[in-house]
């Protein structure tokens, strides 16, 4: 994990053309937007279920996680 990026994969480049993202450059802008949107939506759904549910049994199951992670709980 402490290894520096391999040659040809500089950490400094963050634009879409950077070598680290070359393998995925084939993704069209529409495909990229869809993949990112779906991933973000799934993330929001998962967090909503764990941290924000008003269902009593779900609240009881996730109680300690909600308090520990400072999600509004009660």
């Amino acid at each position, binding site marked *: 994990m402490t290894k520096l990026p391999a040659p040809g994969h500089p950490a400094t480049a*963050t634009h*879409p*053309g950077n070598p*680290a993202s070359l393998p*995925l450059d084939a993704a069209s802008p529409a495909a990229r937007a869809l993949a990112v949107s779906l991933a973000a939506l799934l993330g929001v759904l998962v967090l909503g279920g764990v941290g924000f549910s008003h269902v*009593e049994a779900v609240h009881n199951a*996730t109680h*300690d996680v909600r308090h520990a992670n*400072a999600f509004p709980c009660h």
Partner: protein
Amino acid sequence: MQGFAPLARTILFVAALAGIGAGSVGAALHLVSTVPLILKAEAYEEGAAPDAALAETAAAHTHAGTDAAGAHQHAGTDAAAAGHDHGAGAWEPTPGLERNGLTLLFTLLTGFGFALLLVAASELAGGLASWRQGIGWGLAGFAVFTLAPGLGLPPELPAMPAAELMDRQIWWSVTALATALGLACLAFGPRPLHAALGVLLIAAPHLVGAPQPASYESPIPEGLHHSFVVASILASFVFWVLLGGLAGWLRPIVARHQAEPAARPA
């Protein structure tokens, strides 16, 4: 939809692996730091002497078996409105292994959820290229989901007075969103005006203010709450640094694997 599948798989795999990694460490930290403080607070909530109640964890946490009205009196709040009426017959985990097992499971899921947001956002900026870059994104996540909402709504223990749950959830979510947009303006905005807008977006939720309870009267000692706030934010800090670092380290590796079949002409 050219190139959708490799990118979607990359985001999912990186988020799942980083979420499991950071979630395991986060759960371990919480189980030794914040969870014991939550149990202690519940002892105060039950109105029992905390030491005696802690010695009998099982007795102290059998919410269903106790008188709901007496056991869950929230100082200054309406227990029913606050949605904390455990005695209504709803299922709840048994203390010990089941309860802590669920904490582990849901911390892993929380890790997956936050990792999905982190990786998705970083894909908009071209994708994570290294563990160090990932840590930068992890620190942004810490600011967005811990520091900013926690400034108005600090981590709270059971039995602490609080405003209406829905109001706080809305404020929490809007604050996280505004802070994320604000940080994006600061980091990627091409002009100083964008930076000014970023500062405004981050400050705005706090100028409006988080929903506050009618009374701050609480059976929880201030010292216990302070320890909990420190433990919660510290665990969150470690979780986010690890989540970002793991995502940044894994993303180039997973991306190469995902793209390999496409790179070879049939």
